[in-house]
């Protein structure tokens, strides 16, 4: 007799535990307000990324097309996987001195691991992260970027 009672109890408890699970899924089914899906490409306009989001490394330029990069190459040294290559040139400054400046600051997005060491160690804060995250391109060569804009100058007062 006891075994029959246990048998029935087992069934009832089992079914009850199943019903509790169904309650969870069922309650979400009838509450569409809990849906968390973001409709990504169509919400692109009001998509706000966090300020610190590491999208890609950029070199901010001011409105006079000036940047802060002195071409010291510390970012290149600190990069763990050879993402950055600084090609520098010597220019003659206004007071006739020879000075080092960047010719090209090459950044290979395809190799970047977003460790932020370059941004962190830059002595003149010339580099920053942008929030852009849509990096897909059809040609891999497009991932090699030159960060300084053509014709840009070193910002005054940055050594």
């Amino acid at each position, binding site marked *: 007799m006891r075994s029959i009672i246990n048998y029935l109890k087992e069934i009832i*408890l*089992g079914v009850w*535990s*199943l019903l*509790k*699970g169904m*309650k*969870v*899924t069922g309650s979400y089914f009838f509450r569409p307000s809990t849906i*968390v899906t973001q409709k990504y490409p169509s919400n692109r306009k009001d998509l706000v990324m*966090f300020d*610190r*989001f*590491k999208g890609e490394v950029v070199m901010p330029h001011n409105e006079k097309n000036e940047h802060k990069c002195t071409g010291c190459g510390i970012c290149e040294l*600190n990069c*763990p996987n050879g993402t950055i290559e600084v090609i520098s040139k010597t220019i003659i400054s206004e007071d006739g001195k020879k000075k080092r400046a960047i010719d090209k600051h090459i950044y290979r997005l395809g190799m970047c*691991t*977003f*460790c*932020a*060491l370059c941004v*962190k*160690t830059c002595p003149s804060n010339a580099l920053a*992260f942008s929030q852009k995250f849509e990096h897909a391109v059809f040609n891999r060569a497009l991932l090699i970027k030159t960060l300084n804009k053509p014709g840009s100058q070193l910002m005054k007062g940055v050594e």
Partner: protein
Amino acid sequence: MEEEVKNITPDERQEYVINMGPQHPSTHGVLRLVVSLKGEIVKNIEPHIGYIHRGIEKMCESITYPQIIHLTDRMDYLSAHINNEAVCLNVEKALEVDIPDRIKVIRTIMSELTRIQSHQLWWASFGMDLGGLTCFFYGLRDREKILDIFEETCGGRMLVSYNCPGGVMYDIHPNFQKRVKDFIKYFRKILPEYDQLLSGNVIFHERSKGIGKLSLEDAISYGVTGPTGRASGFSCDVRKHEPYSAYDRITFKEILHTEGDTYSRYIARIDEMWESMNIIEQLIDNIPEGPFAVKMKPIIKLPEGEYYQRVETARGELGVYIISDGNKNPYRVKFRSPNFVNLSVFNHIVKGFKIADLVAIGGSLDLVIPDIDR
């Protein structure tokens, strides 16, 4: 070259050999298991790993200490922050740098958040291994909230690279405390739902209780750590035994179970999530003021010697063994990865169970393959 040729072929042993993986839904990555079956019963499994061996230990020998950190992210990507912390702690220990309390507390909170998100993803995928697909979405839904916290403070979602020798990369975001508190409030409500949906279920009990038993002796002998080891009663929580960061100043209990089956491994992880929330609640309101990083030399050189640091990742004990010859690059770095060791016990506990149990046990071991391969 060294491959041993076994004399008896599987056919002669009357075994049905199937290849699980490298592309298989339930091996969670590129793990390949050669499974010998007799009917549905698993006779033997042989893990074949190395599909994503990147030689991180070799790579470490040619880069500087701050640069190692971004590689440790990519070992156990679900405990990225804790891996980073291990290297940083080791470097700081070698240099005998005093770390301010603020950094310790921030690191501890971040580690515990990492642990929760890792267990959430484990819960999600474990539910999916057992066939409850809805679990996967609930787990990821809740994990997203932690990833948002990470993204706001660290800039990265999964591979955070937040630590650096001497502190953390950036100060915590002004919203950090509020967001973490909101999350804990939310997750305390949601976590019982996990229980109702999956673990309260009679089917789940049938599938997990008594499956893949690992005895305490075997757990110690195989060196199985983390929730997997603690489910067998192996007290191996590094946070308790060798407290690092802020773990010596908070009260928490080590989750220990004695059964050592799939079910207790499950419960151990769920309990750890509760415990992690307790730890965070103790710390989140008491983050001391101070700098977020100690000024370190631009080029870090460790004194000659050997340094070992153990931390508790979401999967077990991670050891970082650095041999330095005084240069800016380490001479040898060895990562004692928890998953690598946990994998070695797989064959031992799976024998005699069915294919479905193989999947359940594999899920309960919670393997992350990049950590095994390194």
